[in-house]
């Protein structure tokens, strides 16, 4: 048995490793092998070859010139730093076909995302399957000001654009930035011995630091600072670095007021404002992709935020409930409330979920809707399967979840569209010493049947509970009973386990991500991802040591890996767009009722996998409706409408629409289905005569 590390690094994670079926560059092939960190170091590959903003603009222009019939370039905005926000539009059919909006590197901290977007654009141009039926709007560099810092010396990272911002609300702005004191061209950290220090070196890895645990008799030694001096003499270090608003937290969903990099209000920046305006002016956008810090394909969007309304359990406010004449002491399901409200609606008006939520003041949706999690989970499994087939099976760290106010959050919650995100690379999980353990992970638990779980036996389950830091009230015995009694399924248990805080004792080893980053630097970057601590005489702090991680090395792989990473993952974009909803008129039938009256019956089918709209789109009503129109010379529509909004149609499902029509003479009926996002269709049928 072995002790797994899943308590520290939760959930299933994959690194694209082991052997590839696709040809790889030698360096990249090397890097994907499961490697012993103590093995001899490979030579450090050159890593400063990502395209800087000027080169990105140049590459965009080259792509346009080489494919002028397919590619157009829009200047969407000028950043506070005077850089252009560019959008590549690809496709020959413009707004008449569904479109995909791709936003990349919105925080400016993801050089790989910009490379991915540029590479995607050139693949789309070459691939008729992608450019014939879809229009693509690609923003390869969503935060050019912040991204530009990647190419400056000294190297430091900050997601803020170039808007001046007074971080410390004193009488000066941007007056206390970092200083490259040791002159190595990299802003790292400083550690200084101090009476009120809280940090101590990690046992066995003195380059890394961890917090001292006073309850275990440990006393802190160091204070940690970022590298620099107190430029403005206010007793603080680097507290007002240049950098304004992070474009990727400036979108309107869960926007954080008065946050340090939030911006004054959602859309306060030219970059985000341009995207807000563009998206609502282009109702044909049917899917949004975000390349950056998150990866919904590996880690689907998470819920768990407070404040979201449980539509199965709604309390009706007293005043409203009384006016409706219902019992306000109990709670209702959404369906029940719709049933109660419908008779109160004016004739012809349909009560729906969105209307009720607004009427009852249920507030904004803050967690992904359960119906949408179904497709997220399905597509995630498919993606993991896809990676497995490509031979990329080793473990990597879980991708991050988006920040509040992020582009991908807004796209899902406000546009009501399916949103997929990719980060293309994450730090590999270092190999752990194999120790005795339960051998159970929350992942394997999730796949067990109740019988399999019980068969594990008390001893193994107890060991697993200990490893996963479970609360004391859960004993192996009690869990076995619950599973046997059917009160709990192993899958439910696995979900709970994933939410447990990481085990305390792991902190002693230092932050697992830092450990991994250090291992990666040692193994693959010839140590260049970490500057060893070296003493330095600081003007105000006295003797300090300067050292620590190089910015960007935790999310930006060596450039030699870029091609193979994109070769591996970008093809899946084709699989994603194949999932788009596609509406069609499957069948039209007429039945003569006598007296020149006909029943017209049409089946509208969604040939795609995703429903139209997704549950969030149904709730917020942001996606443009699909409309069925019925036309014919000299006909009277007795029942049904000339223009019928098509409601929700689930993926691979069909819905029947019926009209009653009177046509004394022979007439040709035209049924037309129009949807900006899910395609158009029409059918002709003759009646009468």
């Amino acid at each position, binding site marked *: 048995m072995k002790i797994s590390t899943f308590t520290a690094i939760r959930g299933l994670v994959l690194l694209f490793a082991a052997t590839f079926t696709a040809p790889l560059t030698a360096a990249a092939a090397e890097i994907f092998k499961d490697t012993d960190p103590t093995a001899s170091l490979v030579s450090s590959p050159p890593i400063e070859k990502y395209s800087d903003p000027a080169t990105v603009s140049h590459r965009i222009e080259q792509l346009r010139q080489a494919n002028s019939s397919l590619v157009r370039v829009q200047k969407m905005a000028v950043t506070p730093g005077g850089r252009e926000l560019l959008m590549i539009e690809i496709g020959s059919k413009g707004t008449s076909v569904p479109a995909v909006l791709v936003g990349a590197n919105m925080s400016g901290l993801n050089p790989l995302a910009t490379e991915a977007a540029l590479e995607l654009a050139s693949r789309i141009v070459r691939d008729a399957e992608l450019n014939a039926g879809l229009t693509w709007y690609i923003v390869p560099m969503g935060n050019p000001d912040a991204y530009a810092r990647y190419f400056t010396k000294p190297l430091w990272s900050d997601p803020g654009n170039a808007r001046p911002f*007074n971080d410390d609300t004193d009488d000066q702005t941007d007056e206390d930035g970092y200083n490259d004191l040791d002159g190595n061209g990299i802003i790292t950290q400083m550690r200084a011995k101090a009476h009120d220090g809280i940090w101590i070196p990690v046992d066995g890895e003195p380059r890394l630091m961890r917090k001292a645990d006073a309850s275990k008799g440990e006393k802190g030694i160091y204070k940690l600072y970022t590298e620099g001096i107190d430029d403005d003499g206010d007793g603080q270090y680097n507290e007002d670095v240049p950098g304004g608003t992070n474009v990727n937290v400036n979108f309107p969903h869960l926007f954080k007021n008065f946050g340090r990099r939030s911006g*004054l*209000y959602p859309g306060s920046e030219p970059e985000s404002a341009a995207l807000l305006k563009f998206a*609502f002016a282009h109702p044909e956008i049917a899917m949004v992709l975000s390349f950056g810090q998150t990866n919904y394909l590996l880690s689907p969007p998470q819920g768990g935020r407070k404040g979201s309304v449980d539509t199965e359990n709604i309390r009706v406010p007293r005043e409203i409930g009384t006016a409706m004449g219902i019992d306000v002491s109990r709670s209702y399901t959404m369906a029940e409330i719709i049933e109660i409200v419908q008779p109160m609606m004016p004739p012809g008006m349909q009560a729906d979920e969105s209307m009720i939520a607004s009427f009852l003041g249920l507030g904004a949706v803050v967690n992904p809707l359960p119906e949408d999690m179904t497709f997220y989970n399905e597509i995630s499994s498919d993606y993991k399967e896809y990676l497995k087939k490509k031979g990329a099976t080793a473990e990597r760290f879980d991708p991050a979840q988006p920040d509040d106010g992020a582009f991908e959050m807004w796209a899902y*919650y406000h546009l009501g569209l399916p949103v997929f995100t990719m980060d293309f690379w994450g730090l590999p999980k270092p190999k752990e010493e194999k120790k005795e353990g339960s051998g159970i992970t929350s992942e394997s638990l999730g796949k067990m049947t109740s019988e399999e779980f019980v068969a594990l036996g008390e001893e193994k389950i107890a060991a697993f509970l200990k490893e996963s830091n479970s609360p004391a009230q859960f004993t192996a015995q009690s869990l076995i009973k619950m599973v046997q009694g059917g009160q709990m399924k192993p899958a439910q248990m696995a979900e709970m386990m994933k939410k447990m805080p990481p085990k305390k004792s792991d902190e002693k080893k230092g932050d697992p991500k830092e450990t991994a980053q250090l291992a990666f630097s040692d193994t693959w970057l010839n140590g260049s991802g970490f500057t060893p601590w070296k003493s330095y005489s600081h003007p105000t702090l006295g003797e300090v040591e300067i050292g620590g991680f190089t910015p960007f090395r935790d999310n930006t792989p060596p450039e030699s890996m870029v091609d193979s990473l994109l070769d591996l993952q970008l093809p899946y974009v084709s699989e994603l767009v194949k999932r788009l909803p596609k509406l069609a008129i499957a069948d039209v039938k007429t039945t003569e009722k006598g007296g020149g009256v006909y029943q017209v019956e049409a089946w509208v089918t969604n040939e795609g996998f995703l429903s139209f709209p997704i549950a969030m789109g149904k709730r917020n009503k942001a996606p443009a409706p699909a409309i069925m129109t019925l036309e014919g010379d000299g006909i009277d529509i007795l029942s049904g409408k000339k*223009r019928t909004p098509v409601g929700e149609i689930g993926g691979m499902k069909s819905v029947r629409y019926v009209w009653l029509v009177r046509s004394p003479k022979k007439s040709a009926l035209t049924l037309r289905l129009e949807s900006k996002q899910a395609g158009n269709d029409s059918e002709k049928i003759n009646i009468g005569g």
Partner: protein
Amino acid sequence: MTIAVAALAVTLLQAQEIKVPLRFDYYYSCEKMAEAMKALNRAYPELTTLDEVGRSEEGRIIWALTINNKKTGEPLSKPGVYVDGNIHGNEIQAGEVCLYLANRLLTNYGKIPEITEVVDRNIFYIIPVVNVDGRAHFFDDPNTPSTNRTIRIPVDDDRDGLLDEDGPEDIDGDGSITNMRIRDTLGRLRSDPADPRLMISVKPGEKGEWTRLGQEGIDNDGDGQVNEDAEGYVDGNRNWGFNWQPPYVQRGAGNYPFEGTGIKAIAGWMLARPNIILVFAFHNNGGMYLRGPSFKAAGELPQGDIAVYDYIGKNMEKIVPGYQYLITWKDLYSTYGDFTDFTNNLVGSYSLVGELYQPETETYDGTLKRKEEERSQSGAASEGERQRLLFDDNVNQGELFKEWKAFRHPLYGDVEIGGWTKMSSRLPHPFMLQDLVHRNASSVIFAARQTPKIKMDVFEVKKLGGDLWSVRVRLVNGGAIPSVTYETIQNKLYPIDKLSVAGRNAKVVSGGVLTDAWMNMVSYKEFRPEVQMCQVPGFGKVEYQFLVSGKGDIEIKYESRKAGTISKTVALK
């Protein structure tokens, strides 16, 4: 009715020549409003500037009149008092309040000392009409008292893929959109025996007489619904960038904050005037002064700010009898993306909404205030409704209510059309306008007299030995409004006021807040003691002590975004 329309036309006709002082016995159309502002600007070129703030969706100019006495200081050196109105296109008297305020201040400057002082000490930014398109269409088109509220961004209300294709219309061509009713023995309404112009609900067993058909109009798009997709609806007062929520949460929000071009222009214009410390936004109706927050989840304001609002609010309740000083979310309902939440939180100003006009003042029982104000929920006509009609019959000579009249409707057949016209219900008759505009402008002037009035007093320069000196500075505020709102401090919105000491031959050794002058208790600031960040509370003071080493002159400087700059030079001797 034709007489009533003619009467209105006459009042408008008389208004054609605009002279200063302006008249307030009629309503200014959108164009006339601009002309009136130009007239004030022409009459007082030394005191006013007229700016184009931006343009509306339909390209109309949003005008701002700035009142500033250049002789008493540069614009940004004084507390800014911002006043606007008519963000809802139909709420037109809000524009008149703003215009009256400007007229009152300008025509009495140099005559009434209180007015001269309030003009000299402050700068007034006045935008009488925010929703210029709405006001223009409210005047020019047939309307109900509530239509043309929103800004002109089309919205597909009925989600049929068409925009604004089925609004109400003036089918009987009388210039007003009123209501339609149809005779229906199975209907749930009958005529009120006390006044047959009103309808009341039938009781069980009674025979019905009428069914209400809603606003005047037809089924333009043939979808079986009448007036289901009218002009708009993006509400200018739900489109601001603080705690904005999307349309499925907040009706009328717009797709994103500042989607409205005029709204966005005003926001930019205000943010370029960081001295704004007091904001009034006028609406109709109900007779209320509202303070934030606008929604419950925002929590209560800091106690210091509540005290300021309470002081101003309770005085305004006396200036305009019958108006109530209330809290938006608590006493009305929660809204998101409101203008005053934006100004309160992001401009850092005390912000109040004035809901103009009390319908209950339209009485016919020999009093000035109706007892029964609202139509009861059961549908029975209230005494208030009956009184209101009698008021119109006898005080307005029936000008504002249109009698029910038969009409042949293309869809419903024989119907009756009638009811209150657009100039009723939310607007006082022009004869009552003068009182409304004066009292509400007086509320603004009262509040403007409370803007921070800071004085600096260097009350001790004492030699402590050698070349070390103790310098004590007191900042006193004569206004009720602090130099920085407490909410601004809490949110770290911007750098608060700065008190600094500098001298060529002097160094500030230490300095800090003098918490107790008698006991010499000082809360010293460890770094950069020569710069102290401070706030001067309303009707209050702060005291600082500096230990200065050196000789010669030192300059003590107070710099405030909202309350101006004061500088004093003292000699260390």
